[in-house]
C-alpha cells in the first residue's frame, strides 16, 4: 500500500483530519527515520492540511526528527531517577566507545544518541529506548551487550 493510502486509511479512525496528524507523522518518519520536507508535504497532501500546520505540529514534539538519524536511535533518559542511578556515566561510556556525542550520529551512521526526558521507567532506572525497544536496569556492564545487538 502506498504511503498516501496508508495515511488516509489511518485518518478514518479519527474524528477529524487533524486528529490523524501525529500518527501520520510516525508513518512517514518510519520510512527514512526522519521528517524531510517531502515527508511533511506527503502528510500535508494526504490529510489535506496546510504545510504550516503539519510542520508546526511536527516541530513541537521531540519524537519527530528533523534531520537524518543513524540506523538506530538510542534515546537515553538522564532525568532525576536515571541520573541518580548513573545515567550520565552511561552517556560518557557510549561517547567513549562510539565517538558519539548527545545529539550526534556516528560516522558510520550506525547510531544516533538523543538524551530523553523521562520515559516513565524510574522504577527500573536507568532506562533507554533503542528504536522502539525498551531497555532498563542499565549498567556499565550490560549496556554494550545490548547495543552491540544493533548493527
Amino acid at each position, binding site marked *: 500500500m502506498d504511503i498516501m493510502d496508508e495515511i488516509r486509511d489511518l485518518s478514518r479512525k479519527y474524528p477529524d483530519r487533524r486528529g490523524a496528524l501525529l500518527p501520520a507523522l510516525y508513518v512517514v518518519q518510519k520510512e527514512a527515520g526522519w521528517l524531510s520536507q517531502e515527508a511533511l508535504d506527503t502528510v500535508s497532501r494526504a490529510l489535506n492540511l496546510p504545510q*504550516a500546520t503539519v510542520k508546526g505540529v511536527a516541530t513541537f514534539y521531540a519524537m519527530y526528527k528533523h534531520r537524518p538519524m543513524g540506523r538506530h536511535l538510542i534515546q537515553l533518559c538522564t532525568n532525576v531517577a536515571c541520573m541518580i542511578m548513573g545515567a550520565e556515566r552511561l552517556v560518557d561510556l557510549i561517547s567513549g566507545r562510539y565517538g558519539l556525542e548527545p545529539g550526534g550520529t556516528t560516522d558510520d551512521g550506525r547510531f544516533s544518541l538523543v538524551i530523553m526526558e523521562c520515559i516513565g521507567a524510574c522504577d527500573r532506572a536507568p532506562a533507554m529506548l533503542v528504536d522502539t525497544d525498551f531497555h532498563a536496569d542499565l549498567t556499565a556492564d550490560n549496556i554494550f551487550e545490548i547495543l552491540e545487538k544493533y548493527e
Partner: protein
Amino acid sequence: MIELTINGRKLQARKGMTILDVARENNIYIPHLCWDRRLKPYGGCRLCLVEVEGQRKLMASCSSPAENGMVVHTDTPALRKARKTVLELLLVHHPLDCPICDKAGECSLQDLAYKYGPSQSRFYGERKHDPEATSPLIDRNPNRCILCGRCVRVCWEHQGVGAINLIGRGFKTKVSPAFEETLDCEFCGQCIDACPVGALGAKPYKYRARAWFLESRDSICPYCAVGCTLTLDVREGRILRVRGVDGKGVNRGDLCGKGRFGFDFIYGDSRLTSPLIRTDGELKEVSWEEALHYVAGRLKAIKEEHGPDAIGAIGSPRTTLEDNYMLARFMREAVGTDNLDTSARLGYAWVLKGVEETYGIRLNPVRLDSPVGKDAVLVIESDITSTHPIFGLKFLEAKLNGSRLLVVEPRKTKLARHASAWLRIRPGTSTAFLNGLVRYALAGGVHLKKEITTEGLEELQESVKDYTPQRVSEMTGIAEDDFTEAAREFITAESRLLAMTVSAAENQKGIETVRAAANLLMLLGEGPEALQIPADYSNTYGAWLMGVRPLGKGRDLYGMLYSPGAVRALYVMGEDPLVTMPDADRIEEALKGLDLLIVQDIRMSETAKLADVILPAASWAEKEGTFMNAEGLPQPVPKVVAATGDSIADWMILRNLARLMGHDLGSMDLETLQDEISGLPPETGTQRWRFAPSDWRLKEGPDAEYPVVLVTGNIMQHSGALSVMSKSLSHVLSDAFVQISPEDAAKFGVEDGGFIRIVSRRDSVFIKARVSDEIPEGMLFVPVHFAHARVNALTFASPDGTAHLTAVRLEPKA
C-alpha cells in the same frame, strides 16, 4: 439561564458563555492577549486569569465556562501579582525596541506592561531570528512575537488558509510559513490585525507614522459589494493604512486584502489631474470651463442634428449613489434620452431578470450571514471567497458550525478545498447540473408535499426530462453516484441555501443558471432568500436602483457598445469597457466610430485613451457619498482626503454640465441630492412564483478546432480593472497570466512561466502560462484585471444573458 457574580455584580449569562464573555458583555475589564472573538478559546497567554471563590487555582477566564452561582473577582492583589509575573515572563525575550516599532502606542503588551507590570524582566533571554524581508505586504518580525497564536489561528480557523504556524518549541519557536519560505498566501492581512504586538505589520505602513499621530475615519470599501467598513488611518492628509476594527460594520472587523491594502489606488500614477480635450489627435490640458463648454456645445449640436437618442451613457458600479443618480437625471432631463446602462447589464441584470421571471420580485438582496446555520449549502461554479471575500468567510463559518458545504466547481478554490463534498464539474455546465437536480426532485415527488405554484410546472417537467443522472454525468463530468448523493443531500436537507455569482467578469454562468437554480429552490418550497447571488462591486446594486439602465425604450449596454454606429456620442462615467467587458475588439470599433466620446474617470483608463474629452473625477475618499452593498444597505462614504489635482465629484461635474446645457437640474448640494434619493419610491413587489424552464446549451462549446474552454473571473487580490492601480496589490500580482492544468500543459507543450498564444474565434493574445493543479484538464482560467493582456478580446458578449464561455486553442510561443 446562568447567574453568577463578578466583582460583586449579579450577572446573567447564556449557556456556552465563558467568564470572559460575560465580563465583556457587561463592560468588566479583564486583560487578554490570546483571546479572539472569532476563534475557539486557546488559553495560552494566562493574562485573563480570574479568581473564582472556592477554587484553589486562578482560572483563565477566556476558556472557563460561566457556571451558575460562580463568584468571580477580576482584580485582586493576587491577580495583579500573577499578571505581573506573566508579563515579566513574556518580556524575557521580547526586544524592547518600542522606539522603532510601529506598534508602539497601540500595542497590547506595552499597554499591559504599563498597567500591571515591570517594564523589564528580571530574567533575560534573547532571540535572534532575522526579521523576514521578502514577503510582500506582510511584515514579520518573529523576535517581537509573544506566541499568542492569534495570527496562526485566524489564518487557519477563520480564513481557512493556514499559511503560517508557530514552528518549533520553547525559546526557539518562530512564527513562520512551514519552511521559512516567502509568504504565498491570500494576503488578507487578517493576521496583522490579530497580532497584539508588533510582530506582524503592514509593509506599506512600515516606519510611516507613530500611532498617536494618526487620525482615524471609518469608510466603506470601494471594491466588492460586501461593503465592509474600513478604518482609515490618516496623517497629514494622506491615508497611510487601513484596519478592520473588531465588531465594526457588516464585516464586524474582518477585511480582505483588497480592502486592507488596495486603498492606495487613489495615489496611483495614472490619476487624472486636469480636464483634457483632444485637438489634432493630441490630448491637451484645458480648464474646467473650457472643457464643460466644449462638451455641452458638442452634445447640444449632436442632439439638435440627430436627436437625443444619438447620445448614450454608461454609469459606474464604483461611483456613489449620488453620482449615478445625477448621471441618470442628466441623461433623462438634460439630454433627453433613455440610453443608459452599467456593466451590471452583463451580469447582475440577468440575476434580477431571472429572479423576476421565477419569483416575480424585482430585487433580491443577499444577507451576508445567510449561510450560517443552514443544513446544506450549495455553491455553484463560483469562487465567492475571491469575488466577495468576507461573504465567502461565512461559508467556511457555516461549515465549521456543522453545515454540509457542497461545492460544484471545476477549480480547486478555497471553498472546494473546505467542502464537505467537492463535485468537480466541467466548466459552464452547472445549468445542466441544476436541471438534473430539478428532475431528481420531481422524480422523488418532493414538490407534491409542498404548497407551491403549478404555473409552468408542466413545462418544467417536460424541459428536464432528459436530465437523467446518467445524462447529467455525461454533460458535467461528475460521477453519477456523486451527483445522486449530492442531489439527495440537498433535497432532503432541513434547511438550505444556494449561492453563486453572476458578473460581468465571468463567462460560465448566465440567466439560464439563475432560472435553473430558482426552479430547483421553488420546487423545494424555498423562497428567494435561499438564492444568494450578490451584486458585484461596491455600488452595483445602488447604480441599478438609481435607474442607470433603460427604463423605457432606451438602448442598453449591448445596444450601445456592441452595435457600432448605434449612437454618435457616449458619456462614460467611471467605467473602462475596453478592459472590463467582453469582446474588446467590437467595443473598440464602436468607440472609435463615435463622433464624441466623453470619459469621466479618476484615471487615464484604456477607454479614456480613445476619448475626445476626459473629465477628471474625484475618487473614493476624496468626495462624500453613499455606497449600497449587496444587502441593499446604503452606507455613507466620507471625504477623508483632498481631491487629486483639479478633479471634482462626478455628480458635481454632471450638475455643472447640465446648467451649461441650459437645463438646471436643481440639486445644488449633496444634501438636497440625498433627500431626493431617499424620496425615490422603493422598489416593491410581491412574490408570484412560476417556473421558468431553462435549457442548457453552450453557445461556444469546445470542439475539434477550439478544444479548450476559457473561463474568466476575478482573483482574490484584485477587483475588476480598479485594483491594478494599487501599488500594494500590484506588489502581490501585477502581471497577467493564464492558469492551465498540468495535463494540458504537457499535451500542448506549455511550460510554467512560458508564454503561449491563446486563439479564439475572435482574436488571439500572448500571455504567460501558470501550470496549476487547481485547474482541470480542458480548461483555462484567466483573470480579467490586467489591461495589457487584453484577454477580453477573446471573449464575446451574449445579449440574451446566457453564459458566454469561450472555446479556444493553444499555441506555445515558438
